[in-house]
């Protein structure tokens, strides 16, 4: 499936509302463009210097005309009024939408350069990939998702073009936005406010599922991490807790409770690693554990300089986190 983020193919509520008003704006501006540029071209062609004889006499000197100037003041004013009406209506509709009781609530915390995701009610902590239920608009189960946006360091911005426009994640401030997707699938977004070295690789995915699949996912995410018995993974388990990984990462139900890095509890349920720098596969995972700076230069996880044996075992352990 092609990872599109085309704002003119909206598949969710706010994006759709923006889309419809933006089409009107595009039409109006296109109209203005055609008229004015046609006028420009016509004048330039019609009144071009035809030849040397033109230099002999100056054209009639005209200093202005109140009527004409009035005309091309009033018409733009009218157009502007139309635009203003469209704008304020759409702003109201989107920003003043009240969330129903059953709305899913997600707290999204921006970090340099990854997304921390909390499902407070469900008691789930994950990273970089949102799962939300489909919302049926035919009255058989409308269920929008409300997003509470915060930041742990600098300003980031939530942007998934096919679902909704941008809203910034700002430290020491709570922002809200909402989405109401009516098509299942994976939607792509970027952090849309420059936030430092790896701003380019601060990608975000939103996975929209049928309500029942979503519930399944929630149940799965709540199960505690199983302690591995396969010997390599078991060694990795030891190594992981022996190393400083646990200072920055959390694995539910263990002593690993770090919050500086993404939660690894259900790492293997994700599609990508490092907030989207690469698809999550055993190879990329190993490469990451070997040296994250290779995959994501300048990211805030240091090269742990682990011996190959530990790299292998820890990778094996991480692979069991699903």
């Amino acid at each position, binding site marked *: 499936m*092609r*990872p*599109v983020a*085309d*704002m*003119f193919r909206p598949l969710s509520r706010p*994006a759709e*509302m923006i889309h419809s*008003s*933006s089409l009107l704006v*595009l039409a109006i*501006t296109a109209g203005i463009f055609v008229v*004015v540029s046609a*006028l*420009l071209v016509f*004048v*330039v062609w019609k*009144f071009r*210097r035809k030849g040397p004889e033109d*230099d002999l006499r*100056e*054209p*009639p000197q005209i*200093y*202005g005309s109140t009527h004409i*100037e009035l005309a*091309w003041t009033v018409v733009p004013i009218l157009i*502007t009024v139309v*635009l203003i009406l*469209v*704008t*304020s209506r*759409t*702003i109201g509709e*989107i*920003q*003043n939408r009240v969330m129903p009781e059953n709305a899913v609530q997600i707290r999204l915390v921006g970090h340099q350069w990854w997304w921390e995701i909390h499902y407070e009610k469900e008691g789930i902590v994950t990273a970089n990939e949102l799962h939300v239920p489909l919302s049926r608009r035919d009255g058989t189960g409308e269920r929008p998702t409300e997003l509470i*946006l915060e930041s742990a360091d*600098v*300003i980031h*911005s939530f*942007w998934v073009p096919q679902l909704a*426009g*941008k809203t*910034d994640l*700002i*430290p*020491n*401030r709570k922002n*809200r936005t909402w989405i109401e997707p009516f098509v299942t699938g994976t939607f*792509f977004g970027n*952090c*849309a*406010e420059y936030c*430092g*070295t790896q*701003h*380019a*690789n601060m990608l975000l995915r939103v996975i929209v599922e049928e309500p029942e699949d979503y519930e399944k996912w929630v149940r799965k995410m709540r199960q505690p991490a199983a302690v591995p018995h396969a010997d390599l993974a078991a060694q990795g388990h030891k190594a992981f807790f022996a190393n400083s990984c646990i200072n920055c990462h959390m694995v539910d139900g263990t002593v690993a409770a770090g919050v500086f890095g993404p939660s690894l509890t259900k790492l293997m349920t994700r599609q990508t690693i490092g907030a989207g720098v690469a698809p999550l596969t055993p190879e990329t995972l190993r490469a990451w554990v070997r040296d994250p700076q290779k995959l994501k230069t*300048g990211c805030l996880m240091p090269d742990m300089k682990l011996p190959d044996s530990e790299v292998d075992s820890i990778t094996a352990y991480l692979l069991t986190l699903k």
Partner: protein
Amino acid sequence: MNPETLDDNFQIPAPERIGQERGSLTRIVQEMVFTVDHKTLGLMYIASGLLFFVVSGLMAAMIRIQLSVPRNHFLDPDVFNRLFTMHGTAMVFLVGMPIIFGFANYLVPLMIGARDMAFPRLNAFGFWVFFFSGLLLYFSYLGAPGLYAAGSAPDVGWFAYSPLTAKAFSRGHSTDYWTLSLLLGGIGSIATSINIIVTALCLRCKGMLLVRMPLFVWMFLVVAFLVIIAMPPLSACQIMLILDRYCGAHFFDTQAGGSAVLWQHFFWIFGHPEVYILILPGFAVASEVIPVFSRKPIFGYPVMVAASVMIGFISLGVWAHHMFTVGMTSIGNTFFAISTLLVAIPTGIKIFNWIGTMYGGKLRFELPMLFCLGFLFQFLIAGLTGVMLAIAPFDWQLSDSYFVVAHFHYVLIGGLLYTIFAGLYYWYPKALGKMPDFKLGLWHFILFTAGFHLTFFPQHLSGFLGMPRRIYTYDAGRGWDLWNLISSIGVIFQAVGILFFVFNLIYSYVKGKKAGDDPWDAWSLEWSTTSPPPAYNFETIPEVRSRRPLWDLKHPDDPDWKYE
């Protein structure tokens, strides 16, 4: 020195001897350093502006190389971030500002029949402060040990949102260089603007009533007022940032209850007027060039003045249209959307009046006119994309995407830079006494225009496809690859175009044919004196009776003052 060491045939050089040394390098340098002449300073402003343009243009070229293909490894992320920060900062503060001040310096006194600016020494001060601020900014590449003790330039973006600029997230000194450089530059701009205001209001020659001032001077009057009102907020937030970084103040420190959004308000209260500070001089040039090459007076002079003043006023109340995504209340968003849309009206009036000026004229497509026509067409597009951005909901999608990058390059290049080129070709004969070569100029126009649209039109589309700005790389297959490749290819054409331009400037000075006092058969006062004008500008201070003094001279049978 003591007499013994003097040999007999030693003699103090006579004044005319000193005169003979003219042209020697040391002499030229000496003149440049000591001069307080508005014309010399004007040329120095423009020259240094062009120098910085080439440098930061080359930086842009590097940006485009990195982005030409997905997952390119030409540049490291940090290097890329420094590049676009330096490119943007330099283009606005070290290219746009000095060049417009250069035009103001050179032309305002000539156009109002004055012998110099009101405060020549202040004028020189303004230039040197600006020049030093530019050097300071670029010195950061050598002088600011970054996090890994490597030389590092600022990498926080040209509007340096806090808290990215806080010590915690921007270690080293690169951000300090940025701050201090802008603080200095601000002081220089304010000094120069006060000078412009005083000159235009107090040094007009006899008969030059305000209602007879060339539109050029009017627009620079508006620009100067915008500068003295909008620049202090920038200086203020630079001071606050310095206090934060060095004295532990908490203006933008979110840990201590400070607000990250405050910086954005303060910056854009400056930042938006700044963009009109940059485009009004463009309008000024167009308002001189279009009438002359249409052989007609400007259409609706009073309305043009009124429109400029209105633009100035409105532009002070629209800043938060750069902040639609920070989560303002729906009232806030609506207010700023409305105020922003209002600007379209006076701007439209101007566009239509220029077209009205050409209507019924006999258009001569000399170089300045060509660039002005390019400006009209491109600024139309730019303005309309601006209107799309002003629709707050639409902006929630477009903001910080490549659509914005396309928008502002269409205004800044398609608008400002094109009128700068027009102005340079138009007044080149006046300043240097030689005609610019038409063929070379035509190549410059064709190549640069082609390259410009190739580079920046596709960026509208990649913006629609969700490509954010300021990303050093992107994955293949998101529909952005082709547009970015085209965009990068365009730069080659632009670069060659610029080479033609630079070559033309030098070639025409050496080989160009002599220009008389008034090669374009124009109507404003600067064409009544010799080219280049003498140090004192006019033997006798002229006296004017209308908006087109030279027209009155050339057409005693039907002078303008009959109709005004």
